[in-house]
C-alpha cells in the first residue's frame, strides 16, 4: 500500500523526521543529494530515535550510541541486526510517497 505523507519541505535538507501511519512510526530522511529514504523509527539496539541521527550520503548514525545503518538496504555497519526499510520516492509536486506493505 502506497501512502502519501506530505510535502518534502516538512523535512529540512540532510535531516530526518518521524511520521505516524496508524500505529506504525516511520523515520523519513531527506539526503542532501536529493534522495528520500524510509525506515523503522527506532534503532534496534536501544530504541534510539533514528530520525534525529546524523545523515550523510545513504548512512544514518543513531544519536544514542552511534550505531551506523545503510538507509537503502537497512544493513548495520557494526554487525548488529538490520533496519526495516520502506520503498520511498518523491511523487507529484514534491510529495513523499512510501510503500508500507509487509515485506513478502
Amino acid at each position: 500500500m502506497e501512502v502519501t505523507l506530505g510535502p518534502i519541505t516538512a523535512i529540512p535538507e540532510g535531516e530526518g523526521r518521524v511520521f505516524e501511519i496508524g500505529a506504525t512510526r516511520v523515520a523519513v530522511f531527506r539526503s542532501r543529494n536529493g534522495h528520500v529514504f524510509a525506515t523503522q523509527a527506532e534503532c534496534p539496539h536501544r530504541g534510539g530515535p533514528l530520525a534525529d541521527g546524523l545523515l550523510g550520503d545513504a548512512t544514518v548514525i543513531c544519536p544514542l550510541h552511534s550505531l551506523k545503518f545503510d538507509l537503502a538496504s537497512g544493513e548495520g555497519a557494526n554487525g548488529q541486526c538490520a533496519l526495516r526499510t520502506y520503498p520511498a520516492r518523491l511523487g507529484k509536486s514534491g510529495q513523499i510517497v512510501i510503500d508500507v506493505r509487509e515485506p513478502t
Partner: protein
Amino acid sequence: MAAKQKLVVIGNGMAGARTVEEILARGGADQFQITMFGEEPYGNYNRILLSDVLNGSHEASDIFLNSLPWYQENGIRLHSGVRVSKILRHSRQVIGEGDIVEEYDKLIIATGSVPFIPQIEGLKLGDGREKPGVFVFRNLDDCRRITEYATGKRAGAVIGGGLLGLEAARGLQNFSLGVTVIQRGNALMSQQLDQPAAAILKKTLEDLGIGVLLDKDTRRITGEDHVTGLEFADGSTLECDLVVIAAGIKANSGLAARAGLTVERGIVVDNQLRTVEDPRIFAVGECVQHRGQVYGLVAPLWEQAKVLADQLTGADPDSGYFGSKVATKLKVMGVEVASMGITEPSEAGDEVVQFTEAKKGTYKKLIIRNGRLVGSILLGDLRKAPYLSQAFERNTPVPEERLSLLFDIGAPSEQASVETMPADMQVCNCNGVTKGAIAGCVKLGKRTSKSVMEATRAGLGCGACKSLVSQVIAWACGAATEEDPSANYYVPGIPLSKPELVTVIRERGLKSVSAVFDALTGGEDDPASKPGLASLLNTLWAGEYEDQRDARFINDRVHANIQKDGTFSVIPQMPGGVTSPAELRRIADVAEKYHVPLLKLTGGQRIDLVGVKREDLPNMWRDLAMPSGFAYAKRYRTCKSCIGIDYCRYGLGKSIELAQEIEQRFQGLDSPGKLKLATAGCPRNCSEAMVKDVGAVAVEGGKWEIYVGGAAGAHVRKGDLLCSVDSHADVLKFSGRFLQYYRENARYLERTYGFVARIGIDKIRAVVVDDSEGIAEQLDSALQRSVDAYRDPWQEAHTQATPNQFRSSLPIVQ
C-alpha cells in the same frame, strides 16, 4: 575474460603464505592460478611461536595459520613436502623433487632462511651422519626431535646468545635440563642491546637458572657416537648431553643463485621486490636483500608482502617497499626485553634518556634525535613499549617531558599486561567488549584499530580505553598490525590533517559543511565528519560561518541533551553557581507546569530539568527566561566556583565574580571538546580548579594561578600551571588566548588534557604567554570575533530555525 596467469610461489612459510593471502585479499584469485611449493609437509604455521612449542606453552597444532584445506578452498595447488631443485628461467619452469614441473608467468621466491652453522669440529659422526644430540632450531621437526631427545637428559648447551638462542635456552629448561648459553662475543643479544643492558639481562637469566658463558669460541663437540660435551678455544670444556646451534640465520638463496639471479647476502631486489635480472621473478621475506639490508623479523616481511601483492595484482602500481624500521621483543617467560632502532647515540646532538635499577632487572634507554625516537632498549618493564614502538615506527614527535616516556607518572598503574589478561576481561567498559571479542575480530581479518573498533564498537563509548584497545589489537595481530592512515585525519571522511584542512578551507573560502564536501569529496557527505567540520568552520569564520543544521548533532539542533528515552534535559545558565529566590521560584513553577520528572543539581553548579518532551522545549525556555547553559554541546559549558573572599574565612580572591566574568566572556564558545572551567578562592581548591580544562586559583599576594589541561572524568589529570597573573582581566586574557590556541590546533573531540599533554606545556606557555610565534594578537582577535558572534540559542523559542524543529512526529498531510 583473459586466461589466468600462472603464479608459482616457492616457499610456504610466513612470507610466501602471507603474500598469497594479500594477493587473494586484492581479488588476485581472478587473475592468477596459484601454485605453491612447501618443503615442510604441513600447511603454513607461525614460526615465531616455535619457542612456545618447545617450552610447552603451545601445542604444535595451535600455531598453524593455514591448514591444508585452506589451500583447497582458495583454489591454490600446494605441493607440500616437495623441495624445489631448480628454476629454468628460459622455459619459465620450476622443477620440484619427484619430477614435478610447474610453468610460471610470474614467480615468487620465498625460501626464507636457514640456520647459520659455524665451523665446529665434531658436528657430525665419523661417517658423515648426523650426530645424536646436535640440533638446529628452525622448524617444527627440529622442535619435535629436540623434545624427544631431551627427555631424561641432564645438561643442554645452546650455542648463540642472540634472540633465538635465548628462546631455545628457556625452552630447554622445560625438560628439567641444566642449560648453558654459549656466546662467542662479550655480550648477549649484541644486535639489540648495549653493554649495560646485556649485563643486566645476563644476571636476570642466571637468576632463572640459565648459565651464561661469554667470550667462548666453541672449537669442538665431543663424543664418539653422541654428544658428551664442548671444547672451547681457550682450552676450557663443558659437559652436556645435547647442543642446540642457534648462531644466527642466513638467507636461503642457493636456488636463486643457481638460476643466475644476483645474490649477495640475500637475493637482491628493487623497491618492487623484483629481482635484478628477471622482471617475472620476485622475492620476498628473509631470503631477500633490499638496499643492503637482510631482515630476520616478521614485520618487514609483512610490509613486503603487501607491496608485492599490490604490484602483482595491479591494486596499487605506485606502491613501493622502502625498507623497515626494526623493533624486536624477546618473548620468553620471566624475561622482558624490547629493543628498537639504534642502541647507541651516533650523531652529534643525539639525546640519551636513561634509567637503571639493576637490582630489579630494570633498564630503560631512549635515544632521541630532533625530538623523535630513533632507538630504545627496555628491560624488565615493558609497560611503555607499545607507546614507544608506535612513536618509533611512525616517527612522531615525543613529549617534551621525557620522564613520561619512561614511566606513567600520575596515571593509574596499568592493569595486568595485555598478554596475561584473561580473554573474558572487559576492555571497553562502555560497550562491554572483552579482550577475547577483540582478538576474535582480528582473527577474522581486521587489522587496523579503526576497523576493529567499528566492528566491535570497542573504544567508541567514552573513548578512555582506546589506547588499551589498540594494545590488545597489536597483541592479537602479532607484529601484523596495520597503520591506519585515518588516525591523523581531522575528521574520518576527509583525508587531511587539521592544518591541511584549515589551509584548504581558508584558501578556497569554504564557509559551510556542504561546501567542504563539494570541494573535497565530490559532494559525498560523510555523516561522522559533519559535526567536526561544523565546529571547525565556526571557529575559523565565526560570524561569517554558514550554519547548516543537518551538520549538527541532535543536541545542537534542539539545544538540549538527548536522554536514553528520547526526552531531553534542560540546564539554564547560572553564572558562578549563584541563583536567587525569584529564579528558584521560576524554575519550580516551570518544573510543575511541564511535569518535569526529575530535578537534579549538576556537578557544574547548575540545575537540570530532566525528562522534558521535545515539544515543550521552546515554551519552557520562554517561561524560564534564562539563557541556555550549553550543557549539551562541544562548547564552553560552565565555570564552577567556591564562595571566595566575601564569606569564606580562608578566601584570597573573588572566585564567584571571576567565574561570572569568565562565563560572560566565553559563553557558547564552541571548541573541539567540551570546556569545563573553575575558579578557586584559595589553594584549598574546593571547586577542584586543578582538574578542569582551565582553572584559576587565587594565591596569597593578590595573584591568580592559571592551570590548563586538567581532567577528572574518563581520564584524570592534574592541570599544568600556565602562568601567574595579578588581575581578573589577565586571567581572561591568557585563558582566552589558550582556548583559542586549543580551538585552532586540537583534533576534533580532543579534550584539553590530551591536547596539553600532546603539545607540551612548555610550548603552550611559550606561545600563549611569551608570544614566541608572534601570533598572540591574532589569537586574541580571533577569539574576540567568536565572543562577538555569541547569541543565545534558546531565542529560537520565538523563531524556529528549521521546519518542524521541535516536533517528535508529524501527521500525514495530503
